[in-house]
């Protein structure tokens, strides 16, 4: 079992003919992902790694039954493409693209809510269900071949790889690794992702990898205290972040007294979450949480 994505999910790649789209399509196929179609307007009729390319999402869906989509689309085209994708009936969208204007993200979030779709990102490494499939750029070779009991939710890409690896080394393989995105507004909030893991019988523990800025960890803390019954371990990156400085991610900023590691850790601790002070500590805390 897993959340959102498995080996049977029929995946569409948007922006498939670009440099990154091509390279990542190859990696996703090699991992076992069932990629059925690609879309790049104007490139319909081509093939990338054997995958047929269409001019529009609607065509791709009609011809191949695609049901989930991953974006390697330039930032300025993301909003338009999301609206096209949702109108074509797709209900899982992974926006890998960085530097999407926040005002666009707010509009996409409102639309996703209206039609009941799950959109991940922007600035997400994507989603990987161990041993089955991946949408996005998470390198498959960093994870064990067979899946385990740990759900991983991360705001950062590279840090989710490190935590996935640390868990595996501790003998606890991940089930599904989800990148929620690192912008000031994310398309799917952390509590909603926890809700998916709550419903997944395979997942017995969740690791949250947070960072400075925004309020996602605080929202998660409220939700966990209220109704989440599986053990949670969390690491929040960016202690000693200077006020007013963006730490790489658009959303990673301590500003106007909001978004510090201290406030997030305090909220999570109050909700009963075990706090790791470094990523490696997740590897010692997680086995304890499962054993107890």
């Amino acid at each position, binding site marked *: 079992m897993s959340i959102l994505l498995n080996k049977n999910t029929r995946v569409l790649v948007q922006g498939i003919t670009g440099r990154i789209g091509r390279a990542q399509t190859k990696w996703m196929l090699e991992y076992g992902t069932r990629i059925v179609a690609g879309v790049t307007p104007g490139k319909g009729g081509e093939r990338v790694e054997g995958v047929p390319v269409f001019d529009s999402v609607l065509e791709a869906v009609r011809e191949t039954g695609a049901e989930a989509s991953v974006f390697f689309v330039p930032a300025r085209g993301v909003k338009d493409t999301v609206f096209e994708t949702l109108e074509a009936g797709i209900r899982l969208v992974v926006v890998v693209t960085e*530097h999407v204007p926040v005002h666009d*993200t707010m509009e996409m979030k409102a639309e996703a809510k209206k039609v009941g779709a799950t959109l991940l990102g922007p600035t997400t490494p994507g989603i990987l269900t161990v041993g089955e499939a991946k949408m996005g750029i998470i390198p498959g070779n960093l994870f064990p071949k067979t899946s385990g009991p740990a759900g991983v939710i991360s705001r950062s890409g590279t840090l989710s790889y490190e935590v996935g690896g640390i868990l595996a080394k501790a003998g606890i393989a991940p089930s599904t690794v989800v990148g929620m995105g690192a912008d000031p507004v994310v398309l799917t909030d952390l509590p909603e992702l926890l809700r998916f893991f709550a419903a997944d019988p395979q997942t017995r523990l969740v690791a949250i990898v947070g960072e400075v800025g925004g309020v996602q960890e605080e929202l998660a803390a409220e939700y966990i205290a209220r109704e989440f019954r599986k053990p949670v371990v969390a690491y929040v990156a960016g202690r000693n972040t200077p006020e007013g400085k963006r730490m790489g991610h658009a959303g990673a900023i301590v500003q106007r007294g909001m978004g510090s590691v201290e406030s997030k850790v305090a909220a999570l601790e109050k909700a009963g979450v075990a706090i790791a002070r*470094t990523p490696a500590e997740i590897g010692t805390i997680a086995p304890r949480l499962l054993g107890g």
Partner: protein
Amino acid sequence: MRLHEHEAARLFQQAGIPVPPFAVVRTADEAVAALERVQLPIVIKAQVLVGSRGKHGGIAVAETPEEVREKARTLLRSSVRGLRVESVMVARKVSIGRELYVGATIDPAAGAITVILGVVGGIDVEMIAHERPEALFRLTVVPPDELRGYQARGLAREAGFRGDLMVKIADVLVSLFRVFRKTDALIAEVNPLVVTADEALWAVDAVLDVDDSALFRHPELPGDSLARMEHPLERAAKQIGVSYVDLNGDIAIISSGAGLGMATMDVVGQRLRPANFLETGGGITEELMYKVTQLVLEKPGVRGLLINLYGGINPIHEGAKGVVRVLREKQVKIPVVAKALGNRQEETWATLSEAGVTVVTDITTEAAVEALCARLIGEKA
């Protein structure tokens, strides 16, 4: 990108918000000449991109042409919170009856826009929120919805305003919201919005922070976002296309992701002191790593370099060649430790090892810091 007060004020004015007459000048003579357009008494305000200018000597009042010359000259020779004053805004001084706060900002919890009306103003909004939360009235607007006039009037009514004043405040809110949407802003605020004794409104300050990611569709906004970065290394990094934040320590850090970079900072910080935060994002090439390696080593006093990379979207085997080129060309003697995992990791390790880099293959950043500490102790011995 944060706009200067006069840039924001111009945009607010064009949107219909009442802004007292003003001019922007770079010399004392120009300040006096501006009195033809801006009547005395005036306020002279340093155009620097920091808050609390009043508290830090960046704002002066002048009532005669002589005072204007003298105070403009003094301000134009000074620094405010470490920033040199290159221009000042000369604005008509208005008589203050009462001060309010109006603002629009992104609410990360709602994923929407929050419009705020404060019945007190003139002090930081965080401070109002902390000390008098009941003085702030908020409304959430989910784009693409607009802030409608009736909604704004409802907010003003809720805050206790009636009659003409309620309508005028609502008009300011609607105009401010339009600027916020039109410029892809992250923050737009007027603090204070002054109410005079005869119930006229004046925006006597203007703050506008726009989304860097949206600048591509705003040719009308100032095009010098790069020049606005104060720190030379931060500016150089932005030019290369990576983000750099200067810190107080002496261990340089290069990471291939923001989260990984922050975690590296955390782990290094337990035993050593990070000199910087640097993350490459997903655009690693040999050339990029060549440039960023040079960049982090430019900081005086750096005594170690920790490189922490993952090859997901990034070709780390290419990046390794760039690192090695710098080490050879500059004959770098300080210890360099690298952890680089993911696609084509073996090639990457070989390239780095050959150039004398300590390669760590363990998944934890702790292992890399441990290796760096060992190298640093070795150097001393």
